[in-house]
């Protein structure tokens, strides 16, 4: 398949997943503040700063808004066009990517992306503040519907695998960030290495984290009511059966990558396969006690870095300009990778318009 088509499928899927996860971040925060009774009159800005820290650049936010509160953070993460990771920006980018490969996806998929796009165009901050849960549920459901439609209308070919890679790399990254949110909330900036404590507020926060992954019920089935942080982390990071855990996501991305290249457990043919295999093995043999004692923050940070590198290698192997001179050559050093990819060539927009229409 054309590299460009593969790349657009990858990014379409990735942006959609990113939008869904941002909705989850926001939803959980609202719930949390309600549970903790902190939403007003005195809003605790720490809870909102945490969201910005894990999803975006604090500097960019600071340039645009005077303070951290429900209104500004929601605006930035849902509506802002200046934030490339806002829900609106993500869905616009997913749609642009889909539009450029409209002949390669099913018309039902296109319709669903379009529906969500138009829903967001019509949404107002006012509506979100009136019913935040309803709004975020709308986004989550739209994403689930899109995945279901894709599942039922897209042929199981190479394109399908690129859709899966985009989705699961993004999801693994987002779950790591979500766990991070919890840490930012827990720890005042001075106390970097505070022990994991079990206080009542803390349990509520952890439950919120689970809920935001739609994981609370699945967790309870495994651990009954033993809601302690280690179990929760074990579930979110290492569980092999829950579809929003990091380990599950990495396995799914690995399967897709290996299907494309024909790699197997014993033989890899490119760096993307090698790195994901390495990560999958590490997760498979990790113990949560080790992760916690070595430092969870560092672990998560390292995980996010590895995910970026896998993304880079997928880019180099399958999407980058494919000529013999710049074929990936086994060296791990990758080209700079922004993480905002599939950005359609907006710079050539003017020229595309200029083509004379006869």
């Amino acid at each position, binding site marked *: 398949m054309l590299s460009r088509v593969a790349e657009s499928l990858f990014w379409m899927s990735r942006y959609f997943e990113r939008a869904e996860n941002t909705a989850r971040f926001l939803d959980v925060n609202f719930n949390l503040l309600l549970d903790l009774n902190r939403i007003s009159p005195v809003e605790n800005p720490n809870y909102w700063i945490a969201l910005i820290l894990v999803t975006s650049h604090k500097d960019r936010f600071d340039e645009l808004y005077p303070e951290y509160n429900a209104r500004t953070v929601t605006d930035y993460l849902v509506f802002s066009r200046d934030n490339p990771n806002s829900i609106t920006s993500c869905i616009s980018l997913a749609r642009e990517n889909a539009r450029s490969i409209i*002949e390669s996806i099913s018309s039902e998929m296109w319709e669903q992306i379009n529906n969500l796009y138009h829903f967001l165009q019509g949404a107002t901050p006012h509506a979100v503040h009136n019913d935040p849960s309803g709004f975020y549920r709308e986004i989550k459901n739209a994403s689930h519907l899109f995945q279901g439609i894709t599942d039922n209308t897209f042929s199981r070919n190479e394109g399908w695998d690129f859709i899966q890679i985009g989705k699961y790399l993004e999801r693994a990254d987002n779950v790591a960030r979500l766990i991070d949110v919890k840490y930012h909330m827990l720890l005042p900036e001075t106390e970097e290495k505070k022990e994991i404590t079990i206080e009542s507020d803390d349990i509520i926060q952890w439950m919120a984290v689970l809920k935001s992954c739609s994981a609370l019920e699945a967790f309870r089935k495994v651990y009954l009511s033993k809601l302690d942080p280690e179990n929760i982390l074990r579930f979110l990071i290492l569980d092999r059966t829950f579809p929003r855990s990091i380990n599950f996501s990495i396995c799914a991305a690995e399967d897709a990558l290996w299907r494309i290249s024909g790699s197997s457990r014993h033989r890899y043919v490119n760096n993307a396969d090698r790195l994901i295999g390495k990560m999958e093995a590490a997760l498979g043999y990790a113990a949560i006690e080790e992760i916690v004692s070595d430092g969870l923050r560092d672990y998560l940070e390292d995980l996010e870095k590895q995910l970026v590198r896998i993304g880079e290698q997928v880019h180099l192997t399958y999407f980058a300009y494919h000529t013999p001179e710049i074929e990936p050559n086994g060296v791990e050093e990758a080209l700079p990778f922004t993480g905002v990819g599939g950005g359609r060539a907006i710079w050539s927009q003017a020229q595309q318009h200029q*083509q004379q229409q006869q």
Partner: protein
Amino acid sequence: MKRFFNRYEAESERFFDEVFSMEGKPRPHYGKLLQRFGQFSQEEINARKEIINIFFRNQGITFTVYGVDEGIERIFPFDLIPRILPAKEWQTIEKGLTQRITALNEFLFDIYHTQKILKDKVVPAELILGSKHFAREFVGVSPPLGVYIHVTGSDIIRDNDGNYFVLEDNLRTPSGVSYMLQNRQALKRAFPVVFEKYKVRPIENYPQELLRTLQEIIPNSKQEPNVVVLTPGIYNSAYFEHSFLARQMGIELTEGKDLVVNNNKVYKRTTRGLERVDVIYRRVDDSFIDPLVFRPDSMLGVAGLINAYRKGNVALANAIGTGVADDKVIYSFVPKIIRYYLGEEPILQNVPTWLASNPSDLKYILENIGTLVVKAANESGGYGMLIGPESTIAEQEQFAEMIVANPRNYIAQPTISLSRHPSFINESELHGCHIDLRPYVLYGRNITIVPGGLTRVALKRGSLVVNSSQGGGSKDTWVVDE
């Protein structure tokens, strides 16, 4: 019929009405259609309109309007009432176009080879050699089968008396054929019954015919040639059409960056490496198609493509440099071109044309600017034109200045009141709207014309401009056997 057509005013004394004769009677080939439409109630019409709107929206059938930032994608307006061409009239059009396109192709071959017609002074050499569309680089290069213009769409209009004229030839990258196909599908879905009583010639095979044409011009003898469509990208106003045609033909839609030239051969970049490409149906203008030869700042083209083409390693449809023959100045020479190469009289007439580069014509144009249509020779899409009777004095003066400054770039024609056809300008009101016709001509081993074409409608009351960028819409077009 009562409901809708009673209030309809054909104004047949001022315009040629496609449906009603001078006496206000329906023309014979429209009889059954009017009867059928007469049985629909207002509600039924509305419901069917809704079916069609949903059909177009779901298909994403949109076009892009330049200069509008928000909501740039609009649905191309579709009018419910089909335009009917009796087989006999169509036969004339078909013959006339075949003759015209054959002659224009010979003309292109000639001016890119021996230039006999210039030496014989039938067409002034400076018009060709000085044209910005003349591709010097291609003199002496022969495209496969000697064909330059594989896909063309000439615009045909009717005057007050119903005579057919060719208004312009589009020999570069004519668009709109996807609307022709979708209009038929939409109408079949909404009004299956109106098809019952007519033998409407099918058009659905256009994508297959186009693919066959593209496969015929393969430069090598490969069994399964790799054919692709080349689009400028999603921001181009005809992007929907490019992707639609690729889907219908079952071939890949590529952008410039998907293609790479290595050792004068063209490849597409795939996830499995490079794959050879043999034929490119390109919808990118000449000047953007190869930054090494034409505009160096082009980001839409493929570097090295032209050399690969010159070496005969890839075929392009249409060929490079065909714009030299659809220039509005060259247009006025087409009757002579037909006589020169084919020794025949033109079957389809030209609209009388004055060339501003001709001093006596220039004088006439400037004196009569208020009654003429003035067009820039190289513009298309309804841009860069002045419709005398609808313009202000200031606009006329501005155009006069432009004409005097660059006479080679302007022509003028009498304002022809295009024929009119009843069309819904809103839900319940029929109005006579001006129409034209663009049949699509395919040229590979021989010439094929899918019956009918795209009828464009000026849906703004009284407007003569049918281009989609200027508020035009379209109709399904039937060629009907009696």
